[in-house]
């Protein structure tokens, strides 16, 4: 029972890992990294409590 449960978790982990890597690749291809970089290289007025 515990073995089956562990295997299920292992499969679920691998599925999440594949989804995560796929998402990262799609995101980079979509240029999301530029959106993040643009936001992060300018002072975020909302974050610091000004805007």
């Amino acid at each position, binding site marked *: 029972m*515990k*073995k089956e449960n*562990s*295997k299920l*978790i*292992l499969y*679920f*982990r691998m599925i*999440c*890992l594949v*989804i*995560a*890597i*796929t*998402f*990262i*690749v*799609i*995101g*980079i291809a*979509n240029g*999301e*990294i*530029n*959106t*993040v*970089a643009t*936001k*992060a*290289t*300018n*002072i*975020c*007025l*909302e*974050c*610091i*409590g*000004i*805007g």
Partner: protein
Amino acid sequence: MKNKVRYMIQAAAAVFFNGFATGFIKGRIFRGKTKGICIPVLNCYSCPGAVAACPIGSLQAVLGSRNSKFSFYVLGTMMLFGVILGRAICGFLCPFGFIQELIYKIKTPKIKIPQKIDRPLRYLKYVVLIVLVIVLPLFLTNEFGMGNPYYCKWLCPVGTLEGGLPLVLMNDSLKKAVGLLFSWKVGILVVILILSVLIYRPFCKYLCPLGAFYGLFNRISFVKLDINRDKCVECGLCEKTCKMNVSVLKNINSTECIRCGECKSACPKQAIDIKSLTRDVKSQETSAEE
């Protein structure tokens, strides 16, 4: 693992994520290429020292932008960190978690929140994640279709501590722009820091949206805790030691466990261990074959 080693890792992580020392001297932020990379912890990208991007801030930035309504890159990065480390990130890498832990070391009587109040309050961080981080930036948009980072704007104490205070103190133009919102955010920060003296990691327990997200991966992450039931005598010392109030014997990989390892150190029978699931399955297969 001894707490001293963990504190050293936490301190090193805080320095590593905020390694742009010039920023603190000149009162400006880092603008290099690494700013597009999401780190695993809540660390404001408007901190003068920050060399990379906060995932929660980035998630709101992409969700609230005009072009994208789903953030593959940020969600993928968060999932990847979650699957590998789970909430060990909170216990070992988060600078704000580290600050709260240091403050908790101040010698005063501590408050243990009754379970009736503590349990429902733990769900608050999921509300913060869903409402302030995802729903509002997505749907409460201006005429150009852009949403505000509502979590950063109204709640995040990390932005105030790491970004707001140093930048406002070092820039006259920002000092002049300070208003009611800044006072609100400083108020939140002060309340959380005061509570941290009395309660262990109150922000992590009740409000952190990133901790809420990583908690979902605690059961499947590579880094896990495991109880050897043959060795365990159910003395309950692990549960008494756990400052995150995890029911160690019932659910050692609870969404609340930050993998600090204090239960492991407290166990008189060395029944608790950090394991990878692959190793666990293999050892079970071997014992089944025997």
